[in-house]
């Protein structure tokens, strides 16, 4: 086996140190020099952020009674890649891979997308939307806050409603629960 790198050790290295000491893509962790540099400067998520997702996909696979090689045969990805993913050594997989996983593991794609961080958790998203709608209704009913907008569409987007709620709170000094 060739020289291995230590991703978390290199994470705190300076740019010149990274250039000097980093390996090319090594067999141990598969992290490239470019990825280490991106990690160092916050341009992508730390691999350790994916530990939760790795454990999640491992549970899914084990609940289906499949081995990594069997999953590989079904065309999801190579077993080496899947192994690294489950150990939290890979960044979140591309949605195309998640689609294949959803089919093989019998898990709704939405759940995989949420776990991988592509979508916010459902409860959080619904709550925010509902709260915003409710707060915007209050803003509209307040006669002491005449307001209007020139807009592209007849229906206001959720973002626009959120903006009006914030504007209301900022200009009137009142908060809407």
């Amino acid at each position, binding site marked *: 086996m060739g020289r291995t790198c230590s991703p978390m050790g290199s994470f705190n290295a300076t740019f010149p140190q990274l250039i000097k000491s980093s390996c090319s893509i090594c067999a141990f962790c598969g992290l490239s020099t470019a990825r280490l540099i991106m990690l160092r400067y916050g341009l992508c998520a730390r691999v350790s952020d994916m530990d939760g997702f790795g454990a999640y996909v491992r549970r899914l696979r084990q609940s289906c009674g499949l081995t990594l090689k069997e999953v590989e045969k079904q065309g999801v990805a190579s077993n080496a890649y899947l192994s690294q993913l489950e150990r939290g050594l890979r960044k979140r997989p591309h949605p195309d891979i998640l689609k294949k996983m959803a089919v093989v593991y019998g898990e709704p794609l939405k759940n995989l997308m949420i776990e991988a961080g592509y979508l916010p958790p459902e409860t959080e998203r619904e709550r925010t939307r509902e709260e915003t709608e409710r707060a915007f209704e209050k803003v509209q009913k307040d006669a002491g*806050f005449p307001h*209007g907008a*020139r807009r*592209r*569409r007849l229906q206001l987007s959720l*973002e626009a409603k959120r*903006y*009006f709620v914030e504007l209301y709170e900022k200009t*009137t000094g009142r908060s809407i629960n």
Partner: protein
Amino acid sequence: MVEESRNLNTDVILSFCQNFILRHPNPWPPDEQALANEFVSYFASFNFLVISDLEKYCTATGIELTKKSLPSDLLAANCYPNGKRKIDLNDHSEYLFIQPHTVLHEIRELLEYSFRDLGYPITDLSEIESRADQFASLVMVCGGEKIWTKLFKDALEIESGLWKFAAVVLIGFCAVSVTAHAYLSATYPYRQDRQSENHPNQRYLT
């Protein structure tokens, strides 16, 4: 100094609305043409065709105009809490060329709040958008008229026939362009909406 502080304390927009109500009692509600004409002559020192002058107008009349990033379906927004007037203008490059029209549109809505305060609403909320668009276009055209008239007069004083002809043609072209721009600005958001309906990816997704 005293004069200056008195000016600052006076609500200029409310004064304009009071003045308008006195001058146009019948028929009420008046049309947007009358309001636009009065607006241009009342605030004659401002050129309503350019955004920099509109910014000066807002500063002078106590309107807080802020250029900022807004949700992409909003060109601008206004509010009038506790007698304070505020306009937020979307600084997205897509809307840059219709900014003067958009600011005038918002000013018209702010005028409506003042007319309501005085007990003389001109229009109800269902019609305010189309009337504000109409008002903004008319103010741009009326404001432009002053400039074109002056320029035409100056051009007519040119001695050389050829240069006089060229100047008149050029000014005429500019006048027509600005007028066309004023009217096209009014329909821009609706045209954009129709286009984005044909191309769903262009629409702002919530």
